[in-house]
């Protein structure tokens, strides 16, 4: 089995270059990508320009389009901000903490035939520089900043890229498809994309 040596990316730009290389082929080695992302030590000066916060909810800020193979984005979470329970539209999802902490709660897919509440499978706190991974075969998750005093910033990689996903109502398992939008792209605010009141959180 071929082992690729892990060269620690010193900067965010190094990380992006290394990710382009990792995704240049047809297959994705999940473990290698996770290790690569985890090995980058967050330096706020390098990602500050993507770190745009909204008072009312978390924001999605596009960083790189990965030659069409992946989307790399930075999410900014104010105190108490959380997402719906959602899936990942058959894509890989990598989530790395750049600042603060996020709580990830895992759920199984709800049973379509029986309408009942969704029970959490497990939960964990992701700490600074840690990188988590999920895909639809693992299950669904909700991500939240549970701190009342600190903001959180996370780096997300989705491959292949997607702009729709399903969100789930925890009390009934009911699902809705929603379109995902960007608060900013490449450091510039993109106001006309935003839609309101989409999260079931």
């Amino acid at each position, binding site marked *: 089995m071929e082992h690729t040596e892990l060269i620690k990316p010193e900067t965010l730009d190094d990380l992006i270059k290394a990710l382009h290389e990792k995704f240049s082929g047809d297959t994705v080695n999940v473990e290698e990508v996770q290790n690569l992302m985890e090995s980058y030590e967050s330096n706020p000066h390098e990602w500050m320009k993507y770190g745009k916060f909204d008072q009312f909810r978390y924001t999605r800020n596009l960083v790189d389009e990965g030659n069409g193979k992946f989307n790399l984005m930075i999410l900014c979470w104010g105190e108490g901000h959380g997402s719906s329970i959602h899936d990942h539209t058959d894509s890989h999802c990598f989530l790395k903490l750049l600042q603060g902490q996020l709580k990830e709660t895992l759920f199984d897919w709800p049973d379509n035939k029986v309408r009942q509440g969704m029970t959490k499978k497990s939960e964990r706190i992701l700490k600074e520089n840690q990188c988590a991974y999920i895909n639809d075969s693992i299950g669904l998750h909700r991500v939240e900043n549970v701190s009342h005093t600190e903001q959180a910033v996370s780096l997300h990689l989705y491959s292949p890229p997607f702009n729709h996903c399903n969100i789930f109502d*925890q009390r009934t398992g009911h699902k809705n498809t929603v379109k995902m939008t960007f608060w900013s792209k490449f450091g510039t605010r993109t106001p006309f994309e935003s839609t309101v*009141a989409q999260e079931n*959180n």
Partner: protein
Amino acid sequence: MEVHESSEGESILDLSRLNLETLSFDHLSEEKKKETQMLFLPYNRLTVLPGCISLFSSLSWLDVSNNGLAFICDDILRLSNLKTFVAKNNRLDESSLPKDLSTMSLEVVNFSGNRFEEFPRQFLQLHTLQSISLGGNRLKGIPPEIENLTSLELLYLGGNNITSIPPELANLPKLSYLVLCDNRIQSIPPQLAQLHSLRSLSLHNNLLTYLPREIVSLVHLQELSLRGNPLVVRFVKDLTYDPPSLLELAGRTVKSRNIPYFAEDLPDNLLTYLDLASKCPNPKCGGVYFDSCVRHIKFVDFCGKYRLPLMHYLCSPECSSPCSSSSQSDADSEDESSVPVHRLQKVLLG
């Protein structure tokens, strides 16, 4: 929350993470102290705020978060230009603040992560306040005098021990962001629906079983968080109904038939009673009720949420609810006949 994006020409002094136990500022020139507009002191080991802080006469932003502060000295009152005061993660409580804090013109205060058990009374007289953060403290309640803060736009009270919300909160004309998550709130007063400026309401992780039906009138609400509340998914109609008393029946007749009465006609207690009449929301009814009423729950899709249980009172079991909204999942409480016998005793099912 208070993230400052530095603009040209702002004089910033950053002394964060320097392990400072005391501060004298002796090494700074008088000019430097007078012109500094933003002073950052977070992540040091200050247990008291030095009196010489008052020398920073132009200061508009002060951050003393993540120190060991148990007390804020009166010298801070001399900072007449101070607009933003951030003191997160210290050891402050209601006895820590200067008595005359309300003489300042503060606009933004963030005292999250401290030890407040009561809302600081000094805040209630600071009419310049636009933003208050008291997340992660030990607050037991919200004082009704909060309605005096007519400039308030942001109120963050998440992560406390709050059990109820005073209806006076609804009198804040500019409130756009209200955070009450991670508390112990059992019900939302219907008056909150008068907060037409509200854009985001955070209620997750409380003890809510339903919301007041009036909440759908908040048409400008963009975000509403409700996860971690025991919101009911089904509701069986109130089957235990206490018929109205003679007093109530008389009151209902006086009000619904507009029978005139004057202060000379009735004792004070009955005048007060008649003033408490509530209108039945059924537009075809036009009646009123006093104490005897029936709870009715409708399930409505609202603000990104699916089938929220919205509650209102009706004057009797025979009355029906007002016109439903057009949402797909809108449904009334279940019919009695479809409910199995063993559940008839329960009024609310979670």
